[in-house]
């Protein structure tokens, strides 16, 4: 199974692979400021890590495509700003999202609490079928860990979330968490694109013309 992320943004056929499906999903990253949301995205999309990642104002947008078997899964990633004040803008980004990664910093108890708040918010406001993953980031700094792995794991299980501890710095579990989400997303019945109002209908139509799109 090919699991290499591919750069470049647009969903093209990976080299040589006989690709016959392209699915496009909107994914949003949420969580307190400075937990490493932008860093996770940067690692996933560009394979890089910046110690001095600039703080996000509003939100940032990036795309990345993963391949699972004969399907290319294109993520449209909305990386939101963590400060509370910007949360009011978050619905712009998470509405119609089919997947979300809620991030906390394993060194910070409060960021874990805030992550739980986000999960509640998503369960109430976002699309009912949204796939939510919880990421305990900065796992490379586990000697200053405050949030126990087991505690978060249990919380995730109780709430039906995917869960991994990640490190944008060392790349640990970064591709894996996106891959796990990609696997869990429905790829055959069009459920993926029932976003509310927003979404990428026109872009999708265009995609449909070029490819044998499985997502409706």
């Amino acid at each position, binding site marked *: 199974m090919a699991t290499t992320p591919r750069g470049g*943004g*647009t969903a093209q056929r990976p080299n040589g692979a006989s690709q016959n499906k392209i699915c496009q999903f909107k994914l949003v990253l949420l969580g*307190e*400021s*400075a937990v490493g949301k932008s860093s996770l995205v940067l690692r996933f999309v560009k394979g890089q890590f910046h*110690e*001095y*990642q*600039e*703080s*996000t*104002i*509003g*939100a*940032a*947008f*990036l*795309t990345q495509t993963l391949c699972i078997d004969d399907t290319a899964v294109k993520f*449209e990633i909305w990386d939101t*700003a*963590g*400060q*509370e*004040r*910007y*949360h*009011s*803008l*978050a*619905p*712009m980004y998470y*509405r119609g999202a089919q997947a979300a990664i809620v991030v906390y910093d394993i060194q910070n*108890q*409060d*960021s874990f*609490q*805030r992550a*739980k*708040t986000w999960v509640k*918010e998503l369960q109430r406001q976002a699309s009912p079928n949204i796939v939510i993953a919880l990421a305990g980031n900065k796992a490379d*700094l586990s000697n200053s860990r405050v949030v126990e792995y087991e505690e978060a794991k249990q919380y995730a299980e109780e709430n039906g979330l995917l869960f991994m501890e990640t490190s944008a*710095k060392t790349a640990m579990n970064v591709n894996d968490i996106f891959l796990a989400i990609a696997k869990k997303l429905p790829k055959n019945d069009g459920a993926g694109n029932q976003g509310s*109002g*927003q*979404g*990428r*209908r*026109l*872009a999708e139509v*265009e995609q449909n013309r070029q490819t044998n799109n499985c997502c409706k």
Partner: protein
Amino acid sequence: MDDDGTDELLLLRAREEREKIFQRYDRGTDPSNDVDPWENPSFEVYHYTDKYGFIQDQRLPIKHDPHESRRLELEVEREKKWLKMLERWDRSQDKLRKRVFKGIPNKLRSAAWLKLLNIPETKKKNAGVYGRMLTLARKYCTETRQIDSDVNRQFRENLAFRERYSIKQRSLFNVLTAYSMYNMELGYCQGMSGLVAVLLLYMDEEDAFWGLNTLMSDRKYAMHGLFIEGFPKLTRFLQHHDYLVAKIMPRLHKHFAKHNLDSILYSLKWFFVIFIERIPYKLCLRIWDIYLLDGERVVTAMAFVILRLHKNRLLKLKDMDAIIEFLQVKLHKDFGYDDDYVIRALEHTMQELKRLKLDLPPPPQPNEFPQRQLGEFIEPDFEKKIGHRKSVFTENEREVLTNVILRQEIIGQTDVESTNSYENSESVTGDAISMRTYQSFNSLATSLALSTDTLDSYNENKLDSGSDTEVEVENTRL
């Protein structure tokens, strides 16, 4: 978790966190301050550092620019004139205006910005205030963690901010924590660190504090309304921006709409931090010069100019990611036009928009300005003190959230025709936009028209030549 102990615990945690952060800034670069190695990125000094202190992703030697020596000569000439002008300062002078548009010589930017922001006077009037705010911040600043994590990420590629807890980093922290006490309604919002960081590259701490205050509270800039909860001024300016694009560049407007590209997705930093990290720093300073002279209308015009100059490129980009990448990343690296040329396009656009009475959106509501006396201290309540530790969203957050969803829905339905709020507003009365207005729209749409191959090629005459004229304005129902 038991309810009784929880509140106490949260307060305690908030206090400990704040005190710890302040202590770290007190110690500064002292070796006793344990700085995680990852917080202090190493860098190769033989990388090219530009004259503004930004380390460029490029190694010495850089290629020789044939125009550089000529530019230096010019700059020396300008410095002389500026020195004289600064001595006999008169803000309303025509000469000043002309020279600001030509670019303030970098050596004299400090002096000029201080005057433009009226800092010496404000500082004198408020002697002692800054010190008091610093003291208050230590005890009450509820935004400490956020400010700290933003200082840690601000301009780290600039020598002044490179080292963790360096003098400038400490100044940045001080100014922002102190200001969150001085303007308690506003507190701190991500984005403000960028503004202050630019100021700090040209002035010291207390001056930057008063400079920030001018930017936030002076009517000319009125950035307070941009950053307060709910972002009322942002909404107002974005609507106006959308209106201008729809009216004057309908093809681009449709193109963006087709790709679901709401302007908030590409232009937030234009409005919040006056183009920092969205256009090259050198050009950005030129825009700042003009912004400090003329205020908020500059941002509206420049936002328009960016789209106008790159329209043809943008129309060729076929998906949202490509457009956003272009506007947010590519233009930061290379704007594609000579700075002087961009400034003239800006000047021209400002004049035209003013003539059309479209240089500003409809007037603000009072909530865009500070409602409370600046500098008046009220102890933060429990909610504020525990900040992000609370487990539900506040009423206010919830209300704003609902409004945003509404706006989304409205935007979904808006097209070029349905710009009612504008047609009824004072600036453009009814449907009867005069012939002159029509002609001016036309002139704005065409006179800046440029072929996309002008990368770096500086051509004095292009601005008036009207090459690549387009007729799309005629398609708009005016």
